[in-house]
């Protein structure tokens, strides 16, 4: 077995002398030249995806005859196949072989994914084989070391040892005879081998198989595998996008990404038909070629014509499944519909993927001419295309459980990274980015800055060891304000900007629509977990418009999401906790349709304070009503209506740049707090606490400190800085203060009072309520022994007595407070004293 390739090569040449293949190069020509020749011949070959139809039957028949004398007819087809590199050292060996080594003892499984070599175009592989991919492959497997491995698959492997030898070891332990080979590794090891692998997968992968098996059984001669090891290359960088597939890719190894939209039932596909003679019971096997069986018309044993009948249960079948994949929405140009491609999965790849899965698939691209109709002389001139899958990689399988860095990682070209870094180095990058955000919306600089920081997010920290669990890194923002202040437009913009954004309206969404629900698939009757907006926007932003219109039960699911960042569901026997690490950007309208400046935020939007305190920043979007502002606004709007697209483009950063900038920062920048920054944060927090303490109010809670940290981290990310510094903290403080100033100012006193957000009522209001309650109690006591009083009467009495104006609401609240004390009870319009 020292040079097994020479044998198929030699045989191959023998076959190639048949007239349909014109040139077979002289063995003496120098390798480089030969390779070039090969290259040019591929150009000719590509458009011809099929094998010669005449060739298919004619050479087979005489060969069969020549070998007919063999007394072991069952071996026959395999003997024929000996001439191909694919079948070399495969089933034939199992019969003839004395089990002297593992390779011989282990049955090989056919590889329908590669098809039979005879179906392949008559590639003149000798020159390539002479190059001996086999030896290179062996060397690759033995020596390849990947020091930079980050793949989870390789976890637990020693990076300093040859990677694939360790994988073989794993196979010997686990017994799963599949070796996944990363094409990038092959490329970095030997570019020529990579080129061949991509261009002639059908020929090169089988030799790869041989190399692996030989190595494996040399090292682990005693291990028993179900089948010989099959090599599954993946990550071929040939094509990434379905849209780019073109006729040149036919019969090449490609990797494309997409989403599974349909899977078929399992189809048993006949690989080898078993025929038995009705007369003499002589049996023969015929391999299926392109869906057809060439039924032998004459029994070779007794020469009876038309005596052979197929025996189904002795024929060989393989599993096959049709999978339809569709372009991922991200890869699509706007205004076009997604393309679909048919993929055939074979053997154990069957049922590996489900509709809805996002996958990367590696396989061989095929084009088959539409079958000629025997009764029709002319045929459709169209090919059917499909991909024979060799490897599936689900890109979203870890989404529900952990971060999938693979899928997140967008590939940035070096140029792009350079541009982004240059941008980051500019001193005013923060302002630039924030003004690039939704340029059609005028001003609201601080809100845009807040949203910008939200887009970048804080740094993820894991405190699960200390029992605190994950620390929320996502910033939540609530916008409230007058209708018509372009809140929805901001939300729409953000939703369009981020790759994993979801947009829902509070009015239209239900709790299940936000979280997840269990549904019975109408076709399979299987229970399926359907994820809602919050889960779908994991690692993205969930934009919720009309937050105030959301029903209470729907809103309640947000509590868990917005702090713990998980979603627990228990439905139809499925109990699980899903990740929902989403930032929430919500917009709410005031309850009276117009913002009432005399009321607090809570009173204006009527949201539970428990939920409000989970927002890091709450902004009011109000009309500033100031002349200079009006003028700028008018100018901005008018320019919107006459400037041409180009002018607009010049003015602002491109949306694509912004998107890349954010993606880059989110992926690669993970800032940590510096010493000074920590000090600054502590000071800021203490200051915030102090503000209120003078008046007996608390103006900051630990949640606010956490918010500050997140904002500071996000600001550091904007600068592409690995360290959170004092300037970041300053900006975080400023922004936080701005937001507080807008949302937590007590309209009665004019002071910022965080308790408005944390307890739903400002401290002064609470004090006032108590005073009124006490006054009322006194009033009632002064009335003496009257067990029941008229409500209206009481209110008027109290009004008459009190110096301050007593509103009906205030009076009601006071009554409620007294009722809570079990002092009185209110029924309808009557107030009764208790005990």
């Amino acid at each position, binding site marked *: 077995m020292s040079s097994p390739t020479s044998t198929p090569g030699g045989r191959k040449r023998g076959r190639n002398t048949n007239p349909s293949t014109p040139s077979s190069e002289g063995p003496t020509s120098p390798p480089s030249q030969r390779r070039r020749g090969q290259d040019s011949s591929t150009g000719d070959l590509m458009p011809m995806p099929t094998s010669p139809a005449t060739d298919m039957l004619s050479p087979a028949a005489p060969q069969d005859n020549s070998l007919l004398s063999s007394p072991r007819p069952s071996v026959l087809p395999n003997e024929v196949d000996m001439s191909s590199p694919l079948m070399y050292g495969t089933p034939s060996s199992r019969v003839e072989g004395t089990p002297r080594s593992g390779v011989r003892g282990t049955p090989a499984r056919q590889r329908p994914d590669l098809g039979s070599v005879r179906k392949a175009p008559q590639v003149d592989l000798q020159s390539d084989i002479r190059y001996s991919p086999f030896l290179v492959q062996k060397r690759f497997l033995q020596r390849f070391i990947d020091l930079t491995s980050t793949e989870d698959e390789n976890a637990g492997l020693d990076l300093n040892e040859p990677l694939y030898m360790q994988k073989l070891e794993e196979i010997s332990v686990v017994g799963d005879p599949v070796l996944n080979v990363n094409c990038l590794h092959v490329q970095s090891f030997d570019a020529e081998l990579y080129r061949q692998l991509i261009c002639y997968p059908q020929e090169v992968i089988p030799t790869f198989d041989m190399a692996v098996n030989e190595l494996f059984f040399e090292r682990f001669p005693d291990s028993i595998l179900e089948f010989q090891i099959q090599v599954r290359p993946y990550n071929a960088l040939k094509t990434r996008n379905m849209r780019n597939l073109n006729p040149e890719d036919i019969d090449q190894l490609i990797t494309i990404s997409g989403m599974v939209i349909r899977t078929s039932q399992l189809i048993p596909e006949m690989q080898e038909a078993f025929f038995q003679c009705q007369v003499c019971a002589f049996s023969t096997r015929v391999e299926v070629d392109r869906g057809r069986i060439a039924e032998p018309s004459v029994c070779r044993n007794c020469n009876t014509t038309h005596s052979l009948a197929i025996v189904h249960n002795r024929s060989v079948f393989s599993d096959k499944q049709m999978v339809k994949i569709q372009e991922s929405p991200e890869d699509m140009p706007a205004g076009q519909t*997604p393309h679909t491609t048919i993929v055939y999965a074979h053997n154990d790849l069957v049922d590996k993927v489900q509709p809805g899965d996002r996958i990367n698939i590696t396989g061989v691209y095929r084009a088959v001419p539409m*079958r000629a109709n025997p009764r*029709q002389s002319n045929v*459709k*001139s169209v*090919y059917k*295309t*499909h991909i024979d899958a060799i490897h599936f990689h689900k890109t979203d399988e870890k989404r529900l459980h952990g971060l999938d860095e693979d899928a997140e990682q967008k590939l940035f070209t070096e140029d792009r990274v350079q541009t982004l870094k240059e941008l980051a180095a500019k001193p005013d990058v923060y302002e630039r980015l924030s003004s690039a955000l939704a340029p059609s919306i005028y001003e609201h600089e601080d809100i845009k800055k807040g949203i910008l920081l939200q887009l970048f997010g804080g740094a993820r920290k894991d405190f699960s060891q200390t029992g605190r669990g994950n620390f929320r890194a996502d910033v939540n923002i609530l916008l409230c304000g007058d209708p018509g202040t372009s809140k929805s437009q901001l939300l729409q913009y953000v939703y369009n900007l981020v790759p994993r954004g979801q947009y829902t309206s509070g009015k239209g969404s239900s709790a299940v629509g936000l979280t997840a629900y269990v549904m019975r698939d109408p076709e399979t009757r299987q229970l399926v977990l359907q994820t809602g907006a919050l889960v779908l926007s994991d690692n993205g932003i969930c934009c919720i418009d009309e937050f105030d219109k959301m029903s209470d039960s729907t809103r309640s699911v947000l509590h868990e999401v917005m702090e713990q960042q998980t979603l627990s569901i228990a439905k139809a026997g499925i109990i699980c906790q899903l990740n929902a690490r989403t930032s929430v950007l919500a917009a709410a309208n005031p309850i009276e349709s117009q913002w009432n400046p005399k009321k607090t935020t809570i009173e204006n939007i009527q949201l539970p304070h428990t939920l409000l305190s989970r927002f890091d920043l709450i902004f009011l979007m109000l*009309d500033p009503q100031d002349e200079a502002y009006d003028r700028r606004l008018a100018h901005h709007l008018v320019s919107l209506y*006459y400037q041409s697209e180009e002018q607009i483009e010049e003015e602002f950063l491109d949306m694509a740049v912004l998107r890349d900038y954010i993606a880059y920062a989110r992926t690669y920048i993970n800032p940590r707090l510096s010493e000074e920054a920590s000090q600054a944060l502590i000071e800021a927090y203490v200051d915030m606490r102090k503000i209120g303490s003078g008046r007996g109010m608390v103006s900051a809670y630990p949640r606010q400190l956490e918010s500050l940290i997140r904002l500071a981290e996000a600001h550091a990310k904007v600068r592409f800085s690995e360290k959170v510094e004092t300037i970041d903290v300053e900006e975080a403080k400023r922004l936080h203060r701005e937001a507080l100033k807008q949302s937590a100012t007590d309209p009665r006193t004019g002071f910022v009072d965080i308790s408005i957000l944390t307890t739903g009522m400002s401290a002064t209001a609470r004090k006032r309520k108590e005073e009124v309650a006490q006054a009322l109690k006194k009033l009632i006591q002064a009335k003496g022994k009257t067990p029941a009083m008229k409500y209206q009467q009481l209110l008027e009495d109290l009004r008459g007595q009190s110096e301050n104006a007593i509103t009906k609401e205030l009076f009601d609240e006071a009554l409620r407070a007294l009722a809570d004390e079990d002092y009185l009870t209110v029924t309808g319009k009557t107030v009764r004293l208790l005990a």
Partner: protein
Amino acid sequence: MMPSTHDWINNPLGVVEGMFAASQNNPNSGWEAKAVEFFKDHLKEKDAHTWVPSLNDVPLHYLKPNSLVKFRCLIQDMFDPEFYMGVYEAVDPSTKAKVLRCGKYKDVTECGVDFDSRNTVTAERQTFYCVPIPGENPWVKESYAGSSQARVVPSTSYAPTRQKRSYEEDDDMDDMDTQMQREPHTGPQSPTEQHGNGDCKRRETEAPSSQTAPASHLDLNFPLPGEKGPSCLVKVYEDWDGFKLNDTLEVFGILSVSPALSALADKKDASSSLLDPTECMETAEEQRVHSPPASLVPRLHVLYAKPLPHNNPLLPSATLEDNSAFLSSTLSEMASVRAELLTFLTPILLGDALAAEYLILHLISNVYSRRDVLPLGKFTLNLSGCPTVASYTERFYQIIQQLVPSSYYLGMSLQNMNQMRFVPKKDYSANRLVSGALQLARNTSLFLDETQLEQGQLDTAGVRNVTALGNLITWQKVDYDFNYHQMEFPCNINVLIASEGRSLLPSDCQIHLQSQITPPHMEEYLSSIHVHPQASQLNKFRMYLSVARLLNYSISDEVTKSVEDDFVDMRKDDPQSISAEDLHRMLVVARLLSLSLGQTSLSRDSWLRAKHIELLRRSRMEQHTCVNGNEP
């Protein structure tokens, strides 16, 4: 018959093949580009495009297979690209010699193909499923048909072999079937069609009826219910990335109705599918959708596709910029036509001139640009206070129909809202985009009749439909349903809502109709306003509306300044009186008002006039709110 110079229309494949043959000695001749250029040049000749018969107005069986035809259509769906044999080798049956053949612009190869020839060249082309422009109004169709100079002689299609005939008849029948179902009274061509039908019946016994069975069940997937006309599989050979879904095109291409196409599809249902595992993978639905019988859905191999900036047959085909003479003459007339149109519309709007003015603005509105997510230039009008008697809204719609090239009346009855499909949805089992009523070409007028809405419950589909309408109005986009995800398709549809009170849908501008007619006389009045203006006047209006929409517009710095000042002043007096949103609207009104007068830049006067009519409208709204206090 046709002079020989028209061979490029009657036998375009001959031209292509001639060029292909000539190129064989010269591999780098670029014959493909030359062929396309040849047809483009010929079509540019004066009136040349009118000689080409149109699929829109000539019944399919009158058209000669493999001749050059044109088709005015909307791209309803995009299928996957397909690989075909661009060049193949075939054995000539007479000489037994191998000949290279060109497979471009053809569906079917000639006999004796050598699949394994090294000379085969695989090429790629893209298939679009195209339907006639949805909601295209009768006057547009008639006008196009009237201007056609193509001479189609039915007899040409009756010449070929017997086998072919049976398929064409087959098509006859299908055509008739669909027409019969949808439109009880056939058009002006009815006598000939009747003839075809009778002919068909006579031979029905000869033609195997099984072939019609699958075809007649075929849903041609028109966006709007009640549409008719041929749909077409358009094969594009170059620059297909430049086409977008819902684009409107005029396609010039080679008609292919080869019976072999249908034959292949039919056989599939029969027996051969068992043998071929690669083909039985496709579901029957998919087969039916992607290779329908050619007699029903002909194939069109594109030589030249012209995007249509508008669909008004009255306008010259050259763009406005290229046709300055036409432009200047129209511009000078615009103000007078506008006045005429106003007089025409006012009685229809019950004597309310202000509403008529706003209606004109609405009719010429157009999304001319998008700033990030914000569509600019849209002007959705809510006409409230429509009388509910004497089917006023329907009469009103009939007038609109007379004026715009394409429009659709959508009665917002509960049943329609709950049952109609508004949003296109991907059907994965048939692998096609099932169309919905909101898949409309640009500048289509969508007339929403809210007076049809009664009390009752909207179900899930109904809520989704209302949301879709809301999104359409606010963002001018429709989120197509791809089951696993949604995809956003921008659109440009003029939505007019007729309602009694304020509409439940958002709108850019609401105007309450002030009827000059007292309710008791309403019915009488309405029946009397059923006016049929003169055709020449109507044509003037039609041209006017289309031109106004195509004009460019700018605002000078000076006017910008004065607009700013105005805004600041108005805010100074009463900040509540005008918000940013109001300014947005006023700028749109000013823009449309200028354009409606044929002015391509904003003048101070127009701005003041815009302000004035806005003021009138708003005061009317306040008045109305007082009367009807419970309205928000």
